[in-house]
């Protein structure tokens, strides 16, 4: 009897093992942690896809934000790509030109569920190179209590740059907090947050003809804004990226800062308002549109199945649930997203700014461009050079990169 039971158990184990071995693995690199609020949902979606495609098993590898993109690209460059990866859309052009990723084939109807401005972040040369996964617009968070304590009468928060400087000065001088939190570390969101202000001043880094236009009055004014705010920021802004400002805002150590919709989850129980990025002297409220995408690498051997998986995971219903769980600005138009502002008015500044937002400037060597712009921002913020000098120097360096 014992021998029979042992035989049956062994057969069952071997049976399961060989069934598992028969499945082809789809390896997907995801930025962040498995515990991030949207990720369990994503895994549920993948399981639903697996149920319809029993020949495949999806394996998620979670890699911290700082290194996940580099890991996926390094593997692909070395000829050992994962099936798919989460990726900042800014590198899609570089990946596509390097022949490392393959495009998606979407119908007109599917394309129509994306805002044009969103689609522009992943589409070039007539192809869609990644499916937008996370989308962010930015707004200004302002602490109502600190505004009141500083004697400021701005019921809707600052609406212009003049308001911002006035408020930052008043808060710094009349409360224990710094007026505004500015990220200025050697990190991507130093440039990103600054671009919000640039786009609210009608400026751009690269024009429609692909020319560098950094040495412009709009850019100089935006750099000067940082110079004007330098005395009212948190201590040592060069040590802060945007994520590090979140606890400062929650602790009421800064009166204002810019962030995406997820900032509402980290603001704690303070009394705060959210408003559009204030308008500059030469422009109107704007925002930087950033998408992160899921891309499919060439050469994994499971390209077709992965394209199908990613298309399924980013279908309107699944994507909408993913956006809401993660606090991302909705990417695709669904009933959920249409009702979003009515159900939660705090979404309004993040949603209404989408049509007028601007995409990230794209050069082949994106990181080098980011370094040049960050250097301009930091040198003005530390008072080393004037805004005019910083813009002129960066213009020259960016032109070299654009050759």
């Amino acid at each position, binding site marked *: 009897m014992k021998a029979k039971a042992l035989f049956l158990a062994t057969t069952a184990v071997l049976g399961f093992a060989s069934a598992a071995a028969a499945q082809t693995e789809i390896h997907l690199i995801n930025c962040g942690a498995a515990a991030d609020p949207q990720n369990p949902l994503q895994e549920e979606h993948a399981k639903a896809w697996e149920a319809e495609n029993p020949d495949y098993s999806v394996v998620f590898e979670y890699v911290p934000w700082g290194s996940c993109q*580099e890991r996926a*690209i*390094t593997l692909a*460059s070395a000829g050992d790509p994962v099936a798919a990866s989460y990726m900042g859309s800014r590198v899609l052009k*570089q*990946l596509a*030109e*390097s*022949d*490392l990723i393959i495009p998606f084939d979407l119908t007109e109807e599917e394309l129509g569920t994306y805002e044009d401005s969103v689609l522009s972040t992943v589409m070039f040369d007539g192809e869609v190179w990644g499916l937008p996964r996370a989308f962010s617009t930015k707004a200004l968070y302002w602490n109502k209590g600190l505004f009141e304590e500083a004697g400021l009468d701005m019921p809707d928060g600052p609406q212009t740059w003049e308001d911002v400087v006035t408020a930052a000065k008043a808060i710094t001088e009349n409360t224990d907090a710094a007026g505004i939190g500015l990220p200025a*570390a*050697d*990190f991507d969101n130093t440039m990103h947050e600054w671009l919000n202000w640039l786009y609210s001043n009608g400026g751009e880094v690269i024009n429609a003809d692909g020319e560098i236009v950094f040495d412009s009055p709009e850019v100089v004014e935006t750099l000067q804004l940082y110079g004007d705010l330098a005395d009212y920021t*948190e*201590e*040592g*802004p*060069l*040590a*802060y990226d945007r994520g590090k400002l979140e*606890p*400062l805002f929650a*602790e009421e*150590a800064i009166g204002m800062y810019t962030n995406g919709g997820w900032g509402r989850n980290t603001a704690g129980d303070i009394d705060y308002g959210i408003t559009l990025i204030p308008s500059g002297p030469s422009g109107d409220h704007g925002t930087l549109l950033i998408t992160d995408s899921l891309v499919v690498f060439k050469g994994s051997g499971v390209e077709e199945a992965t394209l199908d998986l990613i298309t399924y995971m980013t279908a309107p219903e699944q994507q909408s649930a993913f956006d809401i769980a993660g606090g991302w600005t909705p990417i695709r138009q669904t009933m959920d997203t249409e009702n979003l502002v009515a159900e939660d008015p705090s979404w309004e500044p993040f949603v209404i700014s989408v049509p007028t937002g601007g995409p990230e400037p794209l050069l082949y*060597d994106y*990181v*080098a461009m980011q370094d040049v712009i960050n*250097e301009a921002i*930091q*040198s003005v913020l530390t008072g080393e050079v004037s805004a005019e000098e910083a813009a002129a120097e960066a213009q020259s360096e960016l032109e070299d990169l654009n050759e």
Partner: protein
Amino acid sequence: MKKIDYFPYLLLIPAFALTVTIVAWPLFETFRLSFTNASMRPSWKYVGIDNYVEIFEDDFWEVIRLTFLWMTCSVALKIICGTFGAVLLNAAIPGRALFRVLIMPPWIVPIAVGVFIWAWMYNGQFGMISGVMQRLGLIDGPLEFLAFGNTAFLATVITDVWIGTPMVALYLLAAMQSIPTELHEAAWTDGASRFYRFRRITLPLIAPAMATMALLSAIWTFNSFDIIWILTEGGPRGSTTTMIIDTYKTAISRFRYGEGAARAVMILICLSAFAGVYLALLSRLSKRGTA
């Protein structure tokens, strides 16, 4: 005619194959890559010494200067603190064994964990160091150590010293314990003070160990990546960008593999010089030992 015994050579084949696979071949590839314009693009070509010319046009001298400064400060402090620690641990005091255990944590705690703790302590708003300095009246408001070039540089050195000192101390302690006690006893009988005995007996006899440790420490510190990367990622504004950080940023963050390989070759040249000095020192010490 003498018959050649091939058997010993056969036994060497696995070790030889392993060395070729994990040392020689990657080294050769790095050299080869350094003469190409390899990037993310599938095609590449040989560009001669262009990468080497380019890196020296890119303020690389400043990176080299910073690297040697960082290494010198860090190694010097580690040797000073390590020697001081070894003397204390060698003292005949009750509970000496306990102190020898207590010095270990910085060395045995995973580096990333230790560095994250330091990163929090350096934080101006919530960090302990800024808080204590404010309470003592040394500074008016919060000081963000990692935001300014000089303080960030100092912060990375201090963290590296904290992690590296226990090993130096234990190594020098072992050297001190090998000194015959008769020498100290004789000097003590002659009325030599504690400091005099240290200066004239301990220090000369542990000097070879100190030199060896300093060289090894220089090699490890020169190559140190994780401490700086976790604390500052080479910032602010390049003030903690050492050669290894610069190489990583070029090759991995910017995907300029050819240029990154050229930088890696420069590191290899520097480390080879250290290794040469180390081997020469070992050879001299070994000759002295057999003389």
